[in-house]
């Protein structure tokens, strides 16, 4: 996709910029710059401004200059490492125009381009795209597939969700991700026909500072409007789920295998599991064909286990996932006949591309059970298709 290519180009550009910046941090000020300042006539610092001065330089670009304080220390017995650079007025420092500064002024347009690209990157950084905003499991890539068997109609399958994180606007970005989300789930097979759109708010919150409390908590919730084109009708869904995490497990040591969200080295594979408990609420506002309307509240227990076989060889590109969810009706006006809703999902994925940000690969999924939260009646499904996450 064109915009993906652009994003890739921007990321590459920023990576190069980041490396250059890191080098600038580690390198001491160039001897050339020192010589340029030392050889400057004294009258240039008395207020005369060069043409280059008048063009102005962004304050941040002054950072490559050395302060008089540190220069004095270097000339005497002082230590550079002690000094933090005080910012000098532009009228004085720019008149001591050394070559690196001139080069920086020439690169101003490129810098403004980089600023725009940085903003664009910040926007894309705030986006999450995956199969579902269900945060109770290891994020899985969005899924799309088309399949056909002889004599059968074409079957389409889509699981995709998009979220924008706006927690930064409330200055809560260090403890939660919060923002609007939209997700769509389509399955055109007769066995498990589904076409559901959900839009609303999604939340992921770590309320306690784990560095001070031995036990931490992860809260995952959402409140969404739901439109179901197969069953017909509109409604509201909300859920709140909790998982504990623990501080201080020594690396991948097997003694910490019981601790959630830790990878444990089982020699033949890396293992991780996520146990959640929580509650779901669904309110059907309108239903087609005089279907039932009303509210349902369910308790949920869910465990997801991930195994990365031969992790040293595949580097976590190959994963096996088992996901068991058990929902029990606490209050049900819609379908009182069924009180328990078990759901088992098994996946095997191999990623051709896998970074922290992006995944692309092929996956095989099997599911058996009901997911009333997603409008999925009891069914058994096999899927194989392309998986994408970024």
């Amino acid at each position, binding site marked *: 996709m064109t915009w993906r290519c652009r994003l890739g180009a921007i990321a590459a550009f920023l990576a190069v910029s980041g490396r250059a910046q890191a080098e600038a941090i580690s390198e001491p000020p160039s001897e050339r710059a020192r010589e340029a300042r030392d050889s400057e006539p004294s009258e240039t610092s008395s207020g005369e401004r060069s043409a280059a001065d008048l063009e102005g330089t962004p304050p941040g670009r002054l950072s490559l200059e050395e302060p008089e304080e540190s220069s004095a220390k270097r000339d005497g017995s002082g230590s550079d490492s*002690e000094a933090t650079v005080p910012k000098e007025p532009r009228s004085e420092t720019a008149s001591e125009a050394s070559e690196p500064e001139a080069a920086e002024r020439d690169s101003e347009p490129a810098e403004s381009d980089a600023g725009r690209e940085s903003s664009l990157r910040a926007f894309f950084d705030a986006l999450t795209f995956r199969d579902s905003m269900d945060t109770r499991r290891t994020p899985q890539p969005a899924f799309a597939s088309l399949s056909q068997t002889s004599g059968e109609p074409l079957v389409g399958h889509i699981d995709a969700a998009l979220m924008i994180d706006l927690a930064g606007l409330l200055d809560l*970005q260090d403890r939660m991700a919060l923002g609007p989300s939209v997700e769509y789930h389509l399955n055109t097979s007769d066995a498990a026909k589904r076409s559901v759109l959900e839009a609303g708010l999604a939340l992921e919150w770590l309320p306690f500072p784990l560095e001070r409390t031995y036990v931490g908590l992860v809260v995952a919730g959402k409140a969404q409007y739901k439109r179901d084109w197969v069953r017909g009708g509109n409604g509201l869904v909300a859920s709140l789920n909790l998982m504990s995490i623990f501080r201080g497990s020594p690396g991948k040591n097997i003694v910490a295998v019981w601790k959630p*969200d*830790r*990878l444990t080295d089982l020699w033949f594979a890396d293992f991780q599991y996520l146990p959640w408990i929580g509650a779901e609420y669904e309110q059907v506002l309108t239903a087609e064909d005089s279907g039932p309307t009303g509210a349902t509240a369910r308790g949920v227990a869910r465990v997801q286990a991930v195994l990365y076989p031969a992790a040293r060889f595949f580097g976590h590109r190959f994963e096996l996932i088992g996901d068991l969810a058990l929902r029990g009706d606490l209050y049900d006006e819609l379908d009182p006949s069924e009180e328990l809703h078990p759901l088992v999902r098994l996946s095997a994925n191999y990623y051709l591309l896998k970074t922290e940000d992006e995944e692309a690969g092929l996956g095989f999924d099997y599911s058996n059970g009901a997911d009333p939260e997603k409008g999925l009646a009891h069914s058994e499904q096999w899927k194989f298709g392309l998986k994408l996450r970024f």
Partner: protein
Amino acid sequence: MVRERSAGRRGEVASGRDLEQLANDVRAHIAALGGLPKESVRDSQLFKEELGFGDYMKAALARGLQKIAREYDPHAKISVRECKRLKKVGDAVFLVKKAAGIK
């Protein structure tokens, strides 16, 4: 304290001691959450593959990393989303430097 002198001066060059102190603070924070000796945490180590940090463990780093960054810039922001994307310990050090506006 060096950090007190440099706090709030976004975009300036930090001294070698500033940078070393920041990197040490970040490594100490990661070691505390990961149950590791401080000296054993190196910039080249992978969060997931070597230290065993899952996504939520990485997300839990955000609060402490932002606190470190705010010693240099009181307006520094580090999000749980950014922390979930960290791959190496060195990425966390770079993230804090970037958030603190240290060049």
